[in-house]
C-alpha cells in the first residue's frame, strides 16, 4: 500500500536520509526504530510531502506521490499523528476534529467513530485543545487523524511522555485500527511498545536501513533491539 523506495532527504545541504526503503501493507503495524537523530521523523515528514525527497520514490497503491504538493497527501487517506501532538492549540476539540473532517468531507458519523475510540473527548468538545491534559491531547491528535478515515496512519512517538494508562489506551486504539485493515507506521523509542505491537520492525541508523526484523524475531529476542538502541 505505502512504499518508500530508496529515498534521500536533505535539510538544506545536510543529508539526513540515505536510500531509506520501507513498505506498509493494509492491517499491518510496522515500527520504525532508531536512536535520536536517526531520521525517523524525517521519513514521516517526507511521506507527508512536508520535506522534498531528492531521489527515490514514495508510492501509495502503486501511484508515485513524492511529487504531490503536501496538501494533497491527506486526501490519499494518509493520516498523521505528529510528534509532540501539534494540535491547533487555540481551537476547540470540536474545531480540531473539524479540520480533520474537511479533508474528505466526512460527516458526523466519521467524527462519532473517532470519538467512540476516545470517549473522554466527547465530554470536552468545546474545550480549548491547549488546555487538555497530555494524554487527552494525544487522544485528540489521534482522533483528528482518524477523521480523515486513514488507510495508512503515521504515528510519531505517540506514547512519548504519557502515563501508563494513557499509553495502554493509545495502544488499544492502534490494535483496533489494525483490525479495521488500517496500515500503521509507528515511530517509537520505547521497546515495550514495539514488542507489544509490531508485525515488522525497520531498524535505521544515520538515515540508512540497518536491518529489518519480523515481529516474532523481535519478541523472541528483544535484545536485538535493545543492543541497537543502546538502552
Amino acid at each position, binding site marked *: 500500500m505505502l512504499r518508500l523506495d530508496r529515498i534521500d532527504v536533505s535539510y538544506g545541504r545536510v543529508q539526513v536520509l540515505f536510500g531509506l526503503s520501507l513498505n506498509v501493507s493494509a492491517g499491518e503495524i510496522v515500527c520504525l526504530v532508531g536512536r535520536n537523530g536517526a531520521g525517523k521523523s524525517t521519513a514521516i515528514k517526507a511521506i507527508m510531502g512536508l520535506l522534498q525527497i531528492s531521489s527515490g520514490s514514495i508510492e501509495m497503491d502503486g501511484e508515485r506521490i513524492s511529487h504531490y504538493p503536501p496538501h494533497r497527501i*491527506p486526501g490519499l487517506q494518509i493520516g498523521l499523528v505528529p510528534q509532540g501532538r501539534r494540535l*491547533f492549540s*487555540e481551537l476547540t476539540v470540536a*474545531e480540531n476534529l473539524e*479540520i480533520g473532517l474537511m479533508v474528505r468531507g466526512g460527516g458526523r458519523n466519521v467524527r462519532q467513530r473517532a470519538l467512540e475510540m476516545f470517549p473522554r473527548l466527547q465530554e470536552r468538545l468545546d474545550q480549548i485543545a491547549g488546555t487538555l491534559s497530555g494524554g487527552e491531547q494525544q487522544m485528540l491528535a489521534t482522533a483528528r487523524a482518524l477523521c480523515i478515515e486513514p488507510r495508512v496512519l503515521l504515528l510519531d512517538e505517540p506514547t512519548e511522555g504519557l502515563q501508563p494508562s494513557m499509553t495502554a489506551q493509545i495502544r488499544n486504539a492502534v490494535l483496533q485500527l489494525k483490525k479495521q485493515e488500517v496500515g500503521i507506521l509507528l515511530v517509537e523509542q520505547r521497546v515495550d511498545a514495539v514488542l507489544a505491537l509490531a508485525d515488522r520492525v525497520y531498524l535505521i541508523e544515520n538515515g540508512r536501513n540497518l536491518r529489518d526484523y519480523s515481529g516474532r524475531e523481535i519478541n523472541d529476542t528483544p535484545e536485538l533491539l535493545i543492543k541497537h538502541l543502546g538502552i
Partner: protein
Amino acid sequence: MEFGPHFLLATLEGALTAAVLALTAVGLSVVFGIMRVVNVAHGEFFMLGAVIAWFVSTTVGIHPAVGFLLALVVAPVMVGFLAIVADQLVLRRLDYDPERTIVATIGLLYCIQQVTLMTFGPDARPVIPPFNQRIALPWFELGEQGFQVTWPWGFGVTTYKLAVIMFAVIILVGLWRFLARSKFGLIMRATQLDREMALAFGIPIERVYAIVFGLGAGLAALGAVLIVPIRQAHYLMGGEPLLLSFIVVIIGGLGSIPGTIMAAILIGLSDGIISVFFSPTLAKIIATLLVAFVLVYRPQGLFGRRLP
C-alpha cells in the same frame, strides 16, 4: 463653544478615525497574523481604494449616491484582486519569507504609487458623499431651573459620518463572525496557528494566503472608500494610514484582531481629541511615543500574548 460640547465633537471625530483605522489595521493584522508578511504596501492599497472610488463615482455618470455605492463594492473587489495577483507573482515566489517580503512590498508600494500618479495625475480628487445632512445635537446643562436643553451653535454631526462609523462596526462584527463561525475562518485560524500541520491536514495554504492577502487589501480599500468623501483621493495619501495601521497593530499585538480593534479605538479617539484641542502633529507624536513604550515594556502588544 464650551468644553463639553467641544469634547463630544472631538470624540465623534475620533470615533470616525477609529472606525476607518480599525478596518485598515485589521487588514494589516490579518495578513501579518496568518501569513507572517509585513505588508509595507498596505497604505497603497488604501490609496488605490480611494482613487478607484473617485474614478467609479465620477465616470458612472448617474446619481452620485449610486456611483458611491457602486464604488463601495467595486473598489475593494478590484484592490483585493490586484493584491491576489501581487501575491501570486511576488510573495509566493519568495516563499513568503518574512525578510524578503518586506523588501518586495516596499517595491510594490512604489509601483502602485507611481502607476497611480501616471494614470490619474497628482491632483486631489473629491468624491461626493451619498448623503450628508447635518444633524444639530442637543446639549444638556444644569442651570438654576434644573436640566436645560440647549442647541450650541456649530454643535452637530453629519449623517454620513455617523453612517461610516456604523458601517465599519457592521463590517468588523461580520468579519469577526466570519472568522469565528465559517469554515474558511476555521481554515484561516488553523493556518495561523500551525502552517505545517495545516498542510498535513490538506489545507492548501498558498491558496489561503492569496485569499488572506486579497482580504487584507480589500479591507484597506473599503476603509478608504468610506473616508474619501471626507478627505479626498490623492496618490500620496497611503503614508498616514500605513503608519497609523502599524502603530495600531503593534500596540494591539501583532496578529491579534481584538487587540487591533481595541488599539484602533484607543489611537483613533486620542488622534481625534488631540487633533481638535491641540494639533494633528501632536496626536501623531503621542501615538508614536506610545508605540515606543509598548515595544520597550510590552513587546507582545497591550492585548497580545507573549511568545513561548
